[in-house]
């Protein structure tokens, strides 16, 4: 070529952060606690893995304080897989986030599944080079997190239960909020922003486009291929599966089936094939059996 012209690199821009979230669409992100699990997840077709010390179902059993994972365990997982590796920090714990960034994880989940470190403030995610994902239950919460710099949103559901009802509720609420503001006259949007506790500029954007400015995934309670397909129908662009895989009878098979279900969520015949003979699903806890104080989704401000 005669005219080679190029600029210098601009690393970790907003577009590269949201871009990675775009690349994960139509995929499944799986919780793993060991390099062996990570390999099983990758072989099953996971688009990314979430490295953590205990899956949410075990965090519930163990009780106590749930914190960021041991760096050694995260590094071990990074070594065995080529797909993106995510890890969780506690809400508001920006030093855990700094440590995860130093480990060069590909995404940080500032997660309600861990015990919050701050009862009022979340991490200022804009100052980090690594992208963040955060949970939400409605549009206001989603836009507050995006305002703080989250490049991906996931509806929270109720992690570690295997009960899909909360994931459905949060996704429907989010979609409903977006449909509602789409139809409002502009002069009402400032009051909506105030009521939802969301940044006005982002409310304006959602009112114009009808969707979130970043990809919107679903989490918390997915235990079967049908659950994953249900969330895709309701507007999830990808699905996080935590305890649902490695708390089931045959993790490799179930993981593979959930990956297939996200691709073919709109094809009931295929879903019937996919759902055959998967062995025991996780036992789970019905949401009505759970005490209010044991629910994780209420964490986040």
């Amino acid at each position: 070529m005669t005219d080679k012209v190029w600029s210098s690199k601009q690393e970790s821009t907003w577009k590269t952060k949201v871009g990675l979230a775009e690349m994960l669409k139509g995929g499944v992100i799986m919780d793993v606690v060991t390099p062996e699990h990570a390999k099983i997840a990758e072989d099953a077709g996971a688009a990314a893995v979430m490295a953590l010390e205990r899956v949410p179902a075990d965090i519930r059993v163990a009780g106590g304080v749930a914190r960021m994972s041991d760096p050694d365990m995260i590094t071990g997982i990074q070594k065995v897989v080529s797909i993106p590796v995510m890890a969780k920090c506690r809400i508001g714990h920006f030093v855990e986030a700094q440590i995860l960034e130093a480990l060069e994880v590909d995404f940080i989940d500032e997660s309600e599944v861990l015990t919050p470190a701050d009862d009022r403030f979340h991490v200022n995610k804009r100052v980090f080079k690594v992208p963040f994902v955060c949970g939400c239950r409605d549009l206001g919460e989603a836009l507050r997190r995006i305002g703080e710099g989250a490049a991906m949103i996931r509806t929270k559901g109720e992690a570690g239960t295997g009960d899909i009802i909360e994931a459905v509720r949060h996704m429907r609420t989010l979609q409903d909020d977006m449909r509602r503001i789409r139809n409002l006259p502009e002069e009402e949007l400032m009051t909506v922003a105030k009521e939802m506790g969301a940044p006005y500029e982002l409310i304006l954007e959602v009112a114009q486009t009808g969707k979130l400015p970043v990809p919107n995934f679903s989490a918390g309670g997915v235990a079967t291929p049908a659950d994953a397909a249900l969330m895709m129908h309701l507007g999830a662009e990808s699905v996080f599966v935590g305890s649902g895989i490695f708390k089931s009878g045959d993790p490799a098979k179930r993981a593979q089936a959930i990956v297939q279900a996200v691709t073919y969520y709109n094809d009931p015949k295929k879903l019937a094939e996919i759902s055959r003979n998967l062995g025991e699903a996780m036992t789970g806890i019905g949401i009505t059996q759970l005490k209010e104080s044991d629910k994780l989704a209420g964490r986040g401000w």
Partner: protein
Amino acid sequence: MQGAYHKHSLMAESLGAQSIEVRTSEDLAKINGLIIPGGESTVMSKLLTRNRLIEPLRRRALEGMPVFGTCAGMILLAKEVDNFNLPIPGLMDISVHRNAYGRQLESFEAAFTVKGIGEEPVTGIFIRAPKITGYGAGVEVLAEYEDVPVLVRENNFLASSFHPELTGDPRIHALFLSMIS
């Protein structure tokens, strides 16, 4: 099947093309050109294999259907991919190194010129991007960044290390659509 398909559809449709998401061999029979998006190459290879789509895809491509692979899509098009032993269509005479531009922290944007679409540079968004490490005589290099090819064409195939669907600039997609008509 998996990845940034939605953004590609938006871009193609903004240029007046119709688009569908291809998940079955019946879908493959309906189209005149195929974009394999960015995403995770391991996932796409597995979905293609499990759903027996590699051969139908290869057949249509070898019959002359234009195919554009971006990022992971480029990996699927390459005949040679280091450290990767999953089945892929492997249609272009290029060698590719996965994630060679680094982890997410090294993901970047940069501008460079592209042959045949005007002097105005395009902004390439590189996300855990694969690097082209070699190419055959039939491959035309349309753009380079730091002396490494980032956009290449061979017959009815186009491949990029970067993500033109994530920018507001439709020129690369227009170039691909011109290969279809």
